[in-house]
């Protein structure tokens, strides 16, 4: 884990509300594993005060990539940053996805900006069998994986309004895939909580290994403040996990989905 002033190499919109930032840090790029995140101090000064957590969406040489959706003050300010400016970055933080044996085929299920760690996962392991399913609200919200990582591998898309791909939630695509063959698959999911909940419930019912990437409000990112708690499953000896240190990647069965 490092705390460094990193240079912005590029910062470009990839959709009407989603941007991709590349930062130069040989240390973070070398150490980063899929599922891990960074805490970025968006601006010096007191507003915004706290750092913002972002999933690492890929590495290229000594660069690492961060995909962000403009949702508030911090991310709005980020869009104004230019190439050559430098930001304080703390990372890589948290746990990475655990990868099962080669005989497993991986199903990656992402909702919206939640595709970020999955793109890194797919690229990092160079796994041909990994099938990427992505859900977005509408055609205009679709984030092209090729635009992010330059990869040219297949993916399937679902949109809530049916303007592109499957008309319905991305979990329909997962259902379909699991109906075909639910043997020796492992599911990796990141996205809005209702989507994750559905993925978790389905995979647990079928006893399929499933890892989810969760997000939470965070202050430190280091496990020191206990601010980013998530409720543990009733079967766990614990009441809460800290998302930053014990996550953000969790086995679906370890989380209390009723509380989410």
């Amino acid at each position, binding site marked *: *884990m490092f*705390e460094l002033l990193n240079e912005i190499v590029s910062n470009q919109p990839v959709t009407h509300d989603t941007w991709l930032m590349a930062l130069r840090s040989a240390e973070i790029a070398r150490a980063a594993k899929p599922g891990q995140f960074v805490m970025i*101090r968006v601006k010096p000064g*007191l*507003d*915004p*005060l*706290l*750092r913002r957590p972002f999933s690492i969406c890929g590495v290229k040489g000594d660069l690492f990539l961060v995909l962000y959706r403009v949702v508030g003050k911090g991310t709005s300010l980020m869009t104004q940053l230019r190439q050559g400016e430098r930001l*304080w970055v*703390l990372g890589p933080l948290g746990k990475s996805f655990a990868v099962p044996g080669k005989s497993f085929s991986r199903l990656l299920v992402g909702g919206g900006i939640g595709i970020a760690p999955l793109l890194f996962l797919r690229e990092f392991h160079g796994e041909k069998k990994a099938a990427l399913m992505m859900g977005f609200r509408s055609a205009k919200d679709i984030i092209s994986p090729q635009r992010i990582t330059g990869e040219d591998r297949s993916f399937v898309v679902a949109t809530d309004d049916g303007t592109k791909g499957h008309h319905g939630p991305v979990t329909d695509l997962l259902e379909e895939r699991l109906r075909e063959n639910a043997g020796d698959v492992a599911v990796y999911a990141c996205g809005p909580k209702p989507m994750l909940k559905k993925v978790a419930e389905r995979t647990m019912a079928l006893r399929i290994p499933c890892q989810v990437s969760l997000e*939470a*409000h*965070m*202050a*430190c990112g*280091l*496990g*020191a*403040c*206990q*601010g*980013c*708690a*998530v*409720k543990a499953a009733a079967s766990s000896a*614990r*009441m*809460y996990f800290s998302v930053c*240190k014990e996550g953000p990647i969790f086995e679906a069965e370890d989380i209390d989905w009723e*509380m989410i």
Partner: protein
Amino acid sequence: MALTQPDLTTQIGPLSLRNPVIAASGTFGYGLELETLVDLNLLGALVVKGLSLKPMPGNPPPRIVETPGGMLNAIGLANIGLEAFLRDKLPRLRTYTTPIIVNLYGHRTEEYGELASELRGVEGIAALEVNISCPNVECGGMAFGIDPVTSARVTEAVVRNTDKPVIVKLSPNVTDIKTVAKAVEGAGAHALSLINTLTGMAIDVETRRPKLANVFGGLSGPAIKPIALYMVYQVARTVKIPVIGMGGIMDHKDAVEFLMVGARAVEIGTATFVNPRTTLEVIEGIRAYCAEKGIRKIGEIVGSLRT
């Protein structure tokens, strides 16, 4: 002419610190979470996460929310409990030379005494910091610290059961902090630290729900600094025991302000989230400030406010 380094050592009652900068409870975990980023041996002292007799799970999420110039937290005093602390954390903390201060709390007066008693004679604990902002189950959940009588009782319970210096951390959520400070001093505290967080809340107007699951929480960060500074100013002029100042310190200038109103040391909390190395930068900043002003001892700043 050889430039001598300014003497940053400070005395908090029986406790000698190499410099006046302390990592505040709840923002530095058990220290170990930050050891790869911060050389703990450079700190004046380190106050670990508030400890209770039994492990506490804490409050439901969301537990934190950012507000202008600060943050609200309702962690709910989540901690691993006495046994795990002594077994898993303290042995590693002992490898550092920095004084380790254990912040402790209870829900009943006797729990404070019991915890102090359990820590009696334990090696590697330099002092106790008593959190009196915790809800008192004997008084319908009202915080011990809002009343001078319950504050004094808790202080006595700890002082009676310990061989270590006792620092009582005062709550700012009171009508007159001087009254509580005097009561705690009278009960035998060796030092005071202030301020704890200010109670506050924030609401999401779209959902009409509070932003914290606990509805309210403690406000910290630069937004509270002027309030904290005035309270430290008042208390330092009221009590004879040493005062540790805190509340929204972001840099060495903020720290020097607290020293000027009479604090002998400062604690740094929320700023650690913004920059994990704030404590070290404040130490260096104070050193540079002293050198620039020709100040040889940090004591020359303490209480030096001109009015």
